[in-house]
């Protein structure tokens, strides 16, 4: 029981300081889990990260699940995951309660209009960051353009596009 509580507490603390998601988390996890608690090694953490990146769901949550499972089995994974989610959920509940009342204010509307511009730039930069590891040849470039068109203009379900492109990769790429 104390082990589960320890996991919950640790990941609640981690979940409350990770801004910006995924990639920003590695240094914090390294400090908390490798250096301070010695629950895992840096190599192992990197493996969790790369798997967490290419499996469905949120990378940080995937890493929490891995560590929790390693420490205390299925219940450990659940405790770590719940811990990780606690603070973000509470914060958004508070903000959402505020947003519904405060978005009517003109000053908030101006602020958010400015912030949306910033969000645009952040998305462009995320795409640039991922480009090198994703678009590796003409085929992946073609796939990128086709999926972009289908998603942006034909409004085809993203789930369908994910399944189709996964299968395409599986059957087209034979040299390995």
């Amino acid at each position: 029981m104390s082990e589960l509580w320890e996991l919950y507490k640790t990941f609640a603390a981690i979940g409350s300081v990770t801004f910006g998601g995924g990639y920003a988390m590695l240094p914090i996890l390294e400090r908390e889990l490798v250096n301070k608690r010695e629950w895992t090694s840096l190599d192992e953490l990197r493996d969790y990260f790369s798997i967490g990146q290419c499996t469905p769901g949120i990378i940080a949550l995937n890493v929490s699940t891995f560590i929790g499972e390693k420490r205390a089995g299925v219940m450990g994974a659940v405790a770590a995951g719940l811990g990780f989610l606690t603070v973000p959920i509470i914060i958004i509940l508070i903000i959402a309660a505020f947003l519904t009342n405060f978005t009517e204010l003109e000053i908030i509307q101006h602020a958010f209009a400015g912030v949306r511009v910033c969000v645009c730039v952040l998305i462009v930069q995320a795409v640039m960051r991922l480009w090198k590891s994703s678009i590796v040849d003409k085929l992946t470039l073609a796939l990128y353009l086709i999926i972009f068109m289908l998603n942006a203009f034909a409004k085809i379900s993203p789930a369908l596009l994910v399944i189709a492109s996964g299968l395409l990769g599986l059957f087209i790429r034979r040299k390995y």
Partner: protein
Amino acid sequence: MTLIKLMYEFMKTGLFSVGGGLATLPFLYAISDKTNWFTHSDIADMIAVAESTPGPIGVNMSTFAGFKTSGVIGGVLASFALALPSVIIILIIAKFLNKFKDNPLVERTFYGLRPASIAMITAAGLNVAKVALIDLDAFSISHNLNDLFIYKAIVLGVIIFIAQRRFKVHPVLLIAFAAIAGIIFKF
């Protein structure tokens, strides 16, 4: 009934969004199109909130949508629904960790998944740009190309882009800067 639909939609998002954070965006836009849970502007705002508060955008958005449709219980359940598929998948993978890592079939699948993932993130970026950088309403009234682009927004975007590239300013600071610019120049 709404709760079940809410959980179903976010579970689907959790199951199919590969590549973290922004990969949930295309699913959120799809949910926005077929329900009245949140608008495209809500998504753009929530990306900003997610970047400046702890926690991944998927969780933030599911909490927000759940709260808007069914209060606190909705917020909590929608977030759990989002998390559930990936927790189950990781528990399975944890059992076969080493085999999974070096499996050529997995590598081949990701050869196709990676470009699809960033293609849909690009489409999500276009959706935000449609709200942030151009003014379709003004254009459809005047049919004047000058009214289509929100020039001060474009200038701000270029400044932020350069600030991030050259000086690696933290996203939270960029968002605060953009909010202040929005208030001062009345965006």
